[in-house]
């Protein structure tokens, strides 16, 4: 035993040394930009991958010796965010450039994961082309800008005109209030059996999809608390106890308990968003979908589910307010931005890649292939953009009535709490009022007491 002891000791020391060197070194290559982005969980959809690969080629050609390393993360939005946040915590894994959802960016800014871009933006002429709301999308509470948006989106009702014809409903349908939506859904349920009348996203699993497309499209249509039913930006307080909140949950309860929506277990499936555009709508199984402006991209020839007839089959209508109160229509907008991480070792090179992404041609191409609503004035006027897809003028028109989500760091947590309230009301586990109450309780702890009652302001 004894003669071997020094040997083992030596081996241990060597192993430990190896481990330490793994931990300490391995800094990033100064000539490589690491770009992390989310890849669609639908394996047929690769718009972003293809576009980034193309820009990467341009970039490497224009900057000899420099390299771009694309890091696709194929995951649901929530899991993508978790993964990227974990990567950004350590300088060893932090990418240089990340694709950040505007609703989460403030949270990540607060966590110190991102780097302000003001010095770059000041020297960048193209920034003047961005509309003001877009410029504000990635502006933090400290007044600095942390991300460059590459497009936005709006939301409304998509409906299948063929099913509508069978049910005797008009092809230019435009509901004036929530009740008219429910009426149409009931008519379809009665006259066209086997078809799901209406899809409104709900529950925890679809993540922000259900909260924004489903719940907030309803909540912001109640017009409660002076048009800011979630968060009062003036008082910097979150709104509790709103009647609009329980009304919106009540709408979901009506849809799902009266079986006007898809089967609850389908609705609570994390992949329901993909199912809607790849199966239910093209196969004529769904009559009305409350969904986003980008759906059309999936049905292009290059899309995940080519469906050339969609522009004839589907119509669009704005989402009405609860009782038709002014302005009569409601929409929500989000969008994604490119941001440079705080732990990036090549911020200058990363910025150059952002500039490359935002050359006018690349920006136009991106907005077209990803069915984004343009946030740049020059792009919005480009004939290639305006003629890119049927319906694009309809959804660009909704920008007037659109709302943006509260840009505060705790929003993602609030969003999770809303998802839970939705799920409880949808499954019928609790009444809408009780679900709203338990949301209020969670909100108080999330916002650390910075809440204000909806009724209190009249």
């Amino acid at each position, binding site marked *: *035993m*004894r003669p*071997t*002891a020094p040997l*083992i*000791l030596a*081996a*241990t020391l060597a*192993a*430990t040394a190896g481990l330490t060197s793994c931990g300490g070194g391995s800094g990033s290559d100064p000539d490589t930009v690491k770009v992390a982005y989310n890849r669609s969980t639908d394996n047929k959809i690769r718009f972003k991958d293809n576009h980034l690969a193309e820009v990467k080629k341009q970039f490497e050609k224009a900057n000899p010796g420099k390299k771009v390393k694309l890091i696709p993360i194929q995951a649901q939005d*929530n899991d993508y*965010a*978790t993964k990227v*946040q*974990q990567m950004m915590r350590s300088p060893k894994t932090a990418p240089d450039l990340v694709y950040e959802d505007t609703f*989460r960016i403030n*949270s*990540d800014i*607060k*966590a*110190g*994961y991102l780097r302000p871009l003001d010095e770059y933006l000041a020297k960048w002429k193209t920034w003047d082309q961005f509309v003001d709301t877009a410029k504000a999308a990635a502006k933090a509470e400290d007044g600095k800008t942390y991300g460059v948006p590459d497009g936005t989106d709006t939301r409304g009702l998509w409906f299948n005109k063929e099913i509508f014809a069978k049910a005797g409903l008009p092809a230019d349908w435009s509901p004036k209030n929530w009740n008219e939506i429910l009426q149409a859904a009931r008519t379809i349920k009665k006259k066209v059996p086997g078809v799901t009348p209406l899809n409104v996203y709900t*529950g*925890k*699993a679809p993540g922000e999809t259900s909260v924004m497309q489903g719940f907030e499209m309803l909540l912001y249509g109640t017009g409660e608390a002076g048009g800011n039913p979630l968060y009062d930006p003036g008082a910097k307080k979150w709104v509790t106890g709103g009647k609009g909140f329980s009304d919106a949950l009540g709408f979901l309860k009506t849809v799902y308990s009266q079986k006007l929506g898809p*089967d*609850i*277990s389908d609705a*609570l499936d*994390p992949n329901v968003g993909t199912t809607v555009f790849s199966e239910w709508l093209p196969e004529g199984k769904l009559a009305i979908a409350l969904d986003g402006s980008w759906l059309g991209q999936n049905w292009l020839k290059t899309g995940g589910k080519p469906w050339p007839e969609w522009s004839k089959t589907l119509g669009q209508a704005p989402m009405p307010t609860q009782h038709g109160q002014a302005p009569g229509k409601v929409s929500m907008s989000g969008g994604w931005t490119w941001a440079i991480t705080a732990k990036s070792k090549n911020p200058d090179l990363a910025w150059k890649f952002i500039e490359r992404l935002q050359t006018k041609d690349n920006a136009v191409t991106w907005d077209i292939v990803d069915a984004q609503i343009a946030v740049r004035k020059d792009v919005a006027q480009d004939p290639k953009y305006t003629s890119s897809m049927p319906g694009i003028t309809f959804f660009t028109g909704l920008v007037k009535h659109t709302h943006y989500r509260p840009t505060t*760091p*705790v929003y*993602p*947590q609030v969003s*999770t709490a809303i998802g839970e309230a939705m*799920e*409880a009301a949808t*499954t019928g*586990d609790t009444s809408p009022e009780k679900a709203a109450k338990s949301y209020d309780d969670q909100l108080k702890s999330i916002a650390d007491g910075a809440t204000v009652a909806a009724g209190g302001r009249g």
Partner: protein
Amino acid sequence: MATATKVAAAPTETPARPGPRRGRPLRWLPLAPATVMLLLFLGGPIAYCVYIAFTNMQLTGASSTDFVGLDNFQRAFGDDDFRNAVVLTLVFTLLSSLVGQNTLGLALAALMQRASRPVRTLTGSIVIAAWVVPEIVAGFLLYAFFRREGTLNALLDWLGLPSQNWLYTLPILAVSFANVWRGTAFSMLVYSAALSEIPKEITEAAEVDGAGGLGRFWHITLPMIRRSIGTNLMLNTLQTLSVFGLIWAMTRGGPGNRSQTLPVFMYDQAFNKSLIGYGTAVALLLLLVGAVFSVVYLRLMREEV
């Protein structure tokens, strides 16, 4: 940790033994690598975990991490969802580990002992195949079995029985069954080994004395494999308490939180709600639940023998 303490305690025993004094540190040397590794890779993370549980660390939304004392634990005990998760964890453990895996494993082992060789080999390999399949694959297989268009409902339809959406109506039962399906092989192996250790003479003697099959099982077999039962129960329970992948793949803790056991709750808090501190505190509490079970089993085993 236990191994580490044992290792550290070793040098104190040496003075009793004869031998050259300078041998003492050298005697410890071969164990040093193991000690260092254990401290580094087992002790380190546990200590870090304990530290985080007392902070308000977040994955996003806050840049600083502060020490908050017992806040996370207080919050857990006041949290309806946490209590729901504890209850579901106990139901899940009781159903799938104690009742399911353990009893079924013993029954299979006992039956297999009497079966002919080919039957034994065949059954053995089928049951063990379920155990060898990786957890996440098993999760998807059982998801496919229980889902609305799945195998189970197809079978029920074929038999003319009413089908239902199992993952929606009875999620905790579905995941419990999945865990039984997956974990029974382990119990079966343990019990097969234990049963084959029982000397033939004793069973034969009991048979001569007129004991029937059940009597023999109750009076001879069970007492003789008591130790194995204890070990098996403990291993099963601890394994079941920490089942995550299976439930995550099948239901993600839903619908609502009707199948959200503690590990799923912990993941949800730490990574979906970004509350790493709170999630870690729940992890420590889970450790505590496991410790309570272990202590009970160890007690039982000591008293019985």
